[in-house]
């Protein structure tokens, strides 16, 4: 095999290091989406587990976006009124990448995108050998555009490993509308900078339960992938146990400790300018699940979920932008960073966001704010 692949990979690995002059990802300077959590209704959820992030056909999934700006997270009202989102659902083929479904469908007139129909198994006859299909893409009709609910239909593609690509289309500026943004996306035109597109994989499964469902509908077993044994639990959203904040007067190791508290989401602390804030976020380790991945010889191998955390701030400097330990630690210094245009945060409020993901579709987040008192020392 000729080895240009290795050279290309080495270059790609080095590319992120060449980021001089680019805005840092951990800095929130405008309206930005950070996550979309899928929460599937469960008639009888087990005790002490996170919400389910994986949906079977005919179950209902709630989509909860986490969108923030430099002043704090957007409430559902603001999302609905200011961003005016619309949601599309598109059936992803097995192992297809996100946006792949929509990109394959475009160009498409917005008027040609039907509303997503409710699940209907009335006309399904497994003896024909034809699996049911649903229109793709389709528009999720909802009265709550900020947190829509979507009832999963039955589509033959799910039975062979497909999922659903849900895409939120919205606008962040007054210079353009959501309808125009939708038109640009569907007609494959260059999008306006004021358009906001957020896509999330809505996992349909677990795959093993889908296979069982297909068998119930009479699909022959030899036409289906093998079943793992035991059948794994559905994917769930992780939880955060606690967020602990310790603050010190300055950056020196001998600095006086100002406080040490456990904060809840949305809390506001008060600290002086220049303080060093030590952060600890404890993920709920029991939420890390085991799952299986198929091999090429009908075998399965087991993998353990791991945490992946990302930190964001609206002002100040972070020691690092990510953490992948169950106990994620970081340091936030209340002094202006290289991208801060003001010596003190706007309205004296600086916000920290933390998003915690597992290896699959599970996600959760938290945030708190610091009211920064005082300012930089005056020059002598």
């Amino acid at each position, binding site marked *: *095999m*000729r*080895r*240009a692949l*290795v*050279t290309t*990979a080495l*270059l790609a*690995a080095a*590319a*992120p290091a*060449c980021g001089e002059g*680019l*805005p840092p*990802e951990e800095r929130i300077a405008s309206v*930005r*989406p*950070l996550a*979309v959590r899928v929460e599937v209704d469960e008639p009888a959820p087990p005790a002490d587990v996170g919400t389910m992030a994986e949906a079977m056909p005919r179950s209902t999934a709630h989509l909860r*976006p986490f969108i923030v700006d430099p002043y704090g997270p957007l409430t559902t009202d603001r999302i609905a009124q200011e961003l005016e989102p619309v949601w599309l659902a598109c059936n992803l083929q*097995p*192992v*297809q*990448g*996100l*946006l*792949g479904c929509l990109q394959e469908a475009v160009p498409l007139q917005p008027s040609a995108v039907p509303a997503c129909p409710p699940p209907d198994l009335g006309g399904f006859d497994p003896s024909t050998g034809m699996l049911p299909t649903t229109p793709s893409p389709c528009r999720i009709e909802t009265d709550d555009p900020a947190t829509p609910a979507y009832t999963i239909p039955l589509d033959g593609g799910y039975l062979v*490993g497909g*999922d659903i690509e849900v895409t939120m289309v919205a606008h962040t500026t007054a210079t353009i509308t959501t309808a125009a943004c939708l038109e640009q996306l569907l007609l494959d035109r260059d*999008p306006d900078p004021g358009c*906001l*597109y*957020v*896509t*999330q*994989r809505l*996992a349909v499964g677990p795959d093993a339960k889908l296979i069982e469902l297909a068998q119930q509908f009479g699909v022959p077993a030899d*036409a289906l*992938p093998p079943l793992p044994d035991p059948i794994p639990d559905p994917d769930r959203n992780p939880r955060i146990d606690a967020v602990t904040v310790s603050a010190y007067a300055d950056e020196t190791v001998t600095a006086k400790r100002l406080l040490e508290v456990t904060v809840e989401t949305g809390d506001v602390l008060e600290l002086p300018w220049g303080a060093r804030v030590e952060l600890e976020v404890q993920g709920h380790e029991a939420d890390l699940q085991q799952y299986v*991945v198929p*091999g*090429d*010889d009908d075998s399965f*191998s087991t*993998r353990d979920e*791991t945490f*992946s955390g990302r930190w964001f701030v609206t002002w100040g400097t972070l*020691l*690092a*932008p*990510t*953490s*992948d*330990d169950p106990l994620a*630690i970081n*340091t936030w210094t209340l002094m202006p960073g290289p991208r801060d245009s003001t010596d003190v945060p706007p309205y004296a409020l600086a916000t920290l966001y933390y*998003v915690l*993901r597992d290896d*699959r*579709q599970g996600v959760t987040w938290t945030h708190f704010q610091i009211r920064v008192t005082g300012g930089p020392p005056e020059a002598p």
Partner: protein
Amino acid sequence: MPPSAPPSATAPRRAHLGLAGLALAATSLVALPRLAAAAEPAAPASAPDDPTARIVPPEPLATVTVEYPAALAQRPDAPRGEVVVRFVVGVDGVPIEVAIEQSLDAELDALALQAVSALRYRPATLDGEAVEIATRLSIPFEPPPPPRPEPGPPDDAPRGETPGEDTTVGDASIGGDDDVGSGPVRLRGRIREAGQRTPIEGATIVVVPVDPRTPTGRVKKTDYAQGAPPKWQRTRRSDERGDFVVRGTPAERVRVVVLAPGFERIEYVEQLGETTELEVAYYLRRLPTNPYRTVVRSVAEEREEVARRTITPAEIGNLPGTQGDALKAIQNFPGVARAPFGLGLLAIRGTGPNDSAVFIGYHEVPLLYHFGGLTSVFNADILERIDFVPGNFDSRYGDALGGIIDVQPRKGRRDGYHGYVDADIFDAGFLVEGRVGKGSFAVAARRSYIDFILPRVIPDDAGVDLTLAPRYWDDQILFDHPLAGGDFSVRVFGSSDKLKLVAADPNEVTTDQRDRFETAQYFHRADVVWRKQKGPWEFLITPSYRYDMLQFGISDIFNFDLGVHNLTLRSELSHRASKLVKWRVGTELRAGRFTATVAAPPLSALSGGDTATQLQSKQVGWLAIPAVYTTVDVTPGQRLTLSPGLRVSYFGGIYGRASVEPRLRGAVQVAAKTVLKAGVGMFTQAAQPVEASKVYGNPRVGLERAVQTSVGVSQQLPLAISVDATAFFTYLYDEIAPSTALVRRTDGSIGLETFANTQTGRAYGLEILARKQLTGSVFGWVAYTLNRSERRTAPGEPMLLADFDQTHILTLVGVWRLPRNWQIGGRFRLVSGNPYTPTVGAAYDASVGSYLPIEGRRNSARLPAFHQLDIRVDKAWVWKRVKLSLYLDVQNVYNHQNTEFLNPAFDYSLNAPVAGLPIIPSLGTKLEF
């Protein structure tokens, strides 16, 4: 006495070779720079790039002894001096047209004519064909001294009366021990090349008396004023060992003058003793105008493609901007796209880097460079030459759509034991070579020391733990020996690259597999080669075994482990049926067994897919690709040569495909120094294993194909300058492109097709190369390419620019050899920027927390043009036994910030240009012996 006269040009049917001295029994050759300008190509349809390198001089088969006539010796004025005979060595090895060019005495002239006529040679050849060669021979005659009852100091007799010595033609006793009553040995010496210790055969040593007040030692300033003739003079010639002996001179102070073609003249004043022998060793520095030392003969391929560029190690070693890397030198030729960051990617005539093949010694090698481009894996100093064929290559080569680089290792030197130790900013290496019986060996190795330096300079808080700092090494072992009338070679070589680093954020409590990046590549190959030429027949058989290993790991989501055992067997039979027809038939079998263990997300999932759907695969498979090929060279007229060829291959194992590739080349010599060439042919290439993988790819993919056409003109100009212009057009079809179609896969499941043979494309352009050969003190070239390369990924899709499309590629290379072993070279490049796909927007992938680019039209934008100047300065110090070279290679002298690619912001709202290599001075040194 000066050496024999220099050569001159005559009729086209003959080549000329000047022989210095009488060394008819010797087998060493001296290639004379002026011959390159004077010689005419013997075969009308060949492109005479460097006729010097293709001429094999005649080899004497026996020696002839001439005795000084006794009657003549008794004359008081017995003639002494040189008779120069001019003659032609015929195609049967018999001298013809023998004539006196410089007369001495009628009787001695007749003896000289008789002696030369009695000589017999293995005839000279040009491109394997016997040719007549005009030459001359200088025969010194010295009357023998009268016999003495006992050895003693001779009288200080005037010239003509002092007893002389036998002079034999072709006798190794010349310059060596001569005990035929010629007096006591006064001076015994050896002549060697400075810095190499190589014997210089055929050097002229003239000994004359000098004023006793003259200080002994080296004479720095030679007085060429005509004075009184010396009272006596002795003239000797060094033998094949470089030795000489001077007998029967007065025991007094003498001046010793040593002359040899291509070397500096030296003079010493010595004191000869009454009762003692003086032993001396003289080291002559090679003149800059004579870069060639003893050349080990080999027969170059005579088949000429439309555009075949040949570069020799002498040219390679000092090219600026390439760190002496042979294979990177290829990138300076037309038709080769500029690779980013100076990497070793070879994108030839609009095809991709994976579409061309590199052969070292008849077999393909898997990788060329350490870590993709630092330095090549094969030491350039043990290469005989590199042939670069950008298209329409011979049927001998297959499984490639682009071009061919054919590298031939050379034999080890047999003129003593030689070698060197060298070092630069990346690595250090050595080479040792010498004689083994009738054969030779060469051993070379190199190892990097970046792994020693980097961990000591990278700060501890940099967040990078070089668990295994990048390190590489390579080795080559060559052995050659005559066998059964042919040449037998064993070659073992290989390389290894390794890197492992763990990059953790400063806030991480523990580092783990998710923070790692590692790669390891290794291969080793063992070849056996046997070649024999017997009259019109030529035989070649060469089996080879190679083991490859490739490991690659990124975080805990991608692991790749590949091991391949390869066996290749090539055999060829060539026959020159007549003056008009020569044919070659060959077979090539490539077989391999591979084991690949992969754990990775599906390829499409790398861009926003579900990383939980990771595919794990262990595949064991095999490949067998037998091929039969033939090329016939037909010369229906003196000026026209047609070379139809055919290659038939079967790609077995995981492929199960066959190909038939007809090819045709032709050349017409329209004028004495002008050749027109054209070529057309079909070429196929198998899919990359990952593309045909049943897990990650599509086992149904077929062969990729191309039809290449080219037409060119080659013009030889005076002063060893040549100009080549070639126009080419390549049509590519059945190329493999990504596919998102949903199909029923071979295992019965429904899934993405992943890859399909839906892509078509075209590449066309014009290449111009004006080149000054390495003769004299300057060489270089100007290369310009105008081209366009386009692809259509599937029917109905638009035709768009290919990734490596570079409209204009201009390269100027020049190297000047200055006095006192200085050399300076420069390279300037001006190249169109690479095309890229602009990002017009982005969507946030909430599944993984990063943005997905929304791309515009593929390759619809272009980076700024690239331009860069590299300069290299070399200086060598030549002492008697060693030579020390030092070079300073400065890349990007004026530090131009060439944009190699655009690094996007995390949300693709901005782009930051990433510049290529800045000004980089690189120092290197080499100590040769």
